[in-house]
């Protein structure tokens, strides 16, 4: 078979693997060797789906003896099959590298014949890459569950990163959809890699030139949406994996339905859900959040309409607003819209004098979301009430009528008229039966709608809303909302 054909087939079957970043090691050039690795990773191109192309991501082979039901390459599926020889693949990869197409290799494989046979193919390829071509750049390789310890160790000394896919978020799901794999066969290499890495660290300390075992650590990947586990379960699992196996990354892959498979539900890939999971994962890794904080309430799933940090802030509104000139770095990090870079900029810049909102803007701090949660010198940017419902409307990424949750609330309102005049939005509702008219004003249509929403909510809902206090003294417009709210008895008094 032509190498072109092989590449087409084996790149195609590798594309569902998302764990493709080149990062985690910094290795300058060495004389007599080809290439280098940069720890922040380098993307060399972007594919039509907007994902970064950094590594030559291919399968060694897609011939498989296993029958995982979510996978195109399962033995029972009728697909084109191909296998690279180690020589072909190593040569191709080096040629691509020299043209600056790629940053390195990401090599995975289906299980050809048996796990050891497959792992040996991977080993031979990496050996060529490292010794014949003396390649000094980045290589990420998959460990095949069930392969012998010796092979996994040998491959680990040639690779920068190794990963074992956890595949599915629970062992029941695994049993159901990947009958040839078990929790044990997946966790065994993970444990081995973790232990070897600890051992290797000691060796490297003693002998500076000792070969390094997976210097960029290990990662894993799981499929989201093929099985019924809720986000809460997934985030908690991820937290456990980070802690137990010292994983560098957990990757989430929205399940893309494979055609001709009846036992699986036909769904569109849950991309939004995947996106929210990555945001939650980020909170775990970089923002000091615990899994149980991210989904603290009843809800088992992340809110699709709002990033999890925003949701957390609204749920914990009593902690806000924070004063930009006083709050420490970690408190700033918890403000929606303020990331690590902005938090650092703020703590640095305020050393030379206290900051106001204009200073923040100049620093490049994006206030779109942060404005609702911060004060500068004791003042908010404009008078905003910290009512969760209002914030929710403002910060929700979905417009009201696109959201089914909110739809149900608006079912109460048979007729709505939205007008705006003089920069002010007027939002009117005529309730069907008794023809009472509520008119609400707001600075913009969202506030107005939110006001209306609040009015229409039942009393017990309103009680859960934190009380408004003087620090958020209202403008005439919000005052109207509050006054009307007080009249119908849904809002508490200032404390």
């Amino acid at each position, binding site marked *: 078979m032509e190498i072109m054909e092989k590449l087409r087939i084996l*790149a195609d079957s590798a594309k*569902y693997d998302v764990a493709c970043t080149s990062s985690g090691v910094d290795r300058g*050039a060495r004389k007599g060797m080809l290439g280098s690795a940069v720890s922040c990773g380098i993307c060399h191109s*972007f594919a039509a789906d907007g*994902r970064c192309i950094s590594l030559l991501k291919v399968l060694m082979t897609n011939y498989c003896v296993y029958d995982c039901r979510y996978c195109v390459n399962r033995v029972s599926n009728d697909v084109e099959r191909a296998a690279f020889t180690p020589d072909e693949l190593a040569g191709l990869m080096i040629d691509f590298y020299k*043209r*600056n*197409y790629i940053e390195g290799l990401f090599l995975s494989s289906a299980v050809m014949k048996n796990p050891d046979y497959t792992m040996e193919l991977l080993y031979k390829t990496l050996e060529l890459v490292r010794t014949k071509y003396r390649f000094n750049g980045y290589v990420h390789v998959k460990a095949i569950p069930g392969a012998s310890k010796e092979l996994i160790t040998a491959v680990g000394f040639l690779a920068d990163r190794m990963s074992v896919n956890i595949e599915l978020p629970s062992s029941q799901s695994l049993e159901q959809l990947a009958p040839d794999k078990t929790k044990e066969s997946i966790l065994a290499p993970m444990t081995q890699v973790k232990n070897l890495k600890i051992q290797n660290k000691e060796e490297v300390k003693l002998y500076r030139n000792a070969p390094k075992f997976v210097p960029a650590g290990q990662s894993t990947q799981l499929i989201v949406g093929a099985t019924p586990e809720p986000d809460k379960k997934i985030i908690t699992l991820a937290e456990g994996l980070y802690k137990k196996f010292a994983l560098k990354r957990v990757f989430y892959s929205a399940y893309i339905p494979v055609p001709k498979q009846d036992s699986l539900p036909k769904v569109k890939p849950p991309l939004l859900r995947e996106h929210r999971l990555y945001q939650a994962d980020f909170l775990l890794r970089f923002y000091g959040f615990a899994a149980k904080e991210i989904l603290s309430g009843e809800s088992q799933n992340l809110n699709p309409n709002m990033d999890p940090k925003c949701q957390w802030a609204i749920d914990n509104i009593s902690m806000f607003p924070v004063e930009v000139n006083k709050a420490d770095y970690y408190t700033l990090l918890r403000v929606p819209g303020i990331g690590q870079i902005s938090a650092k900029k703020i703590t640095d810049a305020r*050393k030379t004098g206290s900051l106001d909102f204009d200073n923040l803007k100049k620093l490049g701090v994006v206030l779109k979301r942060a404005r609702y949660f911060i004060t500068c010198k004791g003042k908010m940017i404009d008078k905003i009430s910290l009512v969760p419902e209002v914030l929710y409307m403002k910060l929700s990424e979905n417009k009201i009528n696109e959201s089914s949750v909110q739809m149900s609330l608006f079912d109460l309102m048979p007729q709505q008229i939205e007008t705006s005049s003089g920069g002010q939005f007027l939002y009117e509702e005529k309730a069907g039966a008794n023809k009472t008219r509520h008119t609400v004003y707001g600075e913009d249509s969202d506030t107005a709608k939110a006001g209306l929403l609040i009015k229409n909510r039942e009393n017990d809902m309103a009680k859960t809303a934190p009380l408004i206090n003087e620090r958020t003294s209202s403008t005439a417009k919000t005052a109207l909302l509050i006054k009307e709210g007080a009249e119908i008895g849904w809002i508490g008094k200032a404390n």
Partner: protein
Amino acid sequence: MDRQGELIVTFDGSFDGLLTVVYNRFYENLRPDFISKRGNVQQRLDSQITDIETDFDKSAKVYEGIASKISPGAIHTVYYASLKDDAEIYTKIYRYILLGFKVHGDINNYLKEDYVLGVLKAAKTVGREANFLREFIRFKETKDGILYGEISPESNCLGIVAHHFADRFLGLKWIIADKKRDISAVSGGEGFILTDDILPDIGEFADKEENLIALWKMFHKTIANESRVNPKLQTQLLPKRYRKHMTEFQIDFNLPD
């Protein structure tokens, strides 16, 4: 002395030239209101122009002064900023360095000064473009085994890009040509030189090049998930202006669709 109007100082546009201008501020009491690349300035009636010759001994002194009195990072910042294609930038850098000598390592916290912010932003823009290029430049191998790549960047960041490849392609022969400025970086395996000489003909590309390009294009196409196609995101991450020199975005006119 009674000076009429503002003083404009011109120099050759090089980093060393700019540092020489700073040197003259301290040792010749030459206080420019505006600094410009030679030939880029139009004299106004009320302004006077002084031209400064680049002097490497003088620039070296200022270089060390910046590294020790401000911070080693400040050298990096002003160097990157000076590569920006922007007529105002030299004056801003000059003022940035002067303030830096006063406030030392705290300089980057003086963001309330527009020129400090301007310099930092420029450095970032240049750095970002250099990063883009380091990722997106494509090479082809000639029959003689030279890797040849072309760019046409907005800022003058060939040097930064070449620096990256001096490391990455250690031991290989390579050339990067800036087609916009007609300058090139050339390496024979170790280090590189920047030159505005016209390069000798590099000869034909190797036979396997065509096949490799086809393989790469196929990989690029195949690896995208149809169910995730997102051209808006792709454009945001990989601005169209960089695609000109990228193999995978060059259209094959002889291939059927």
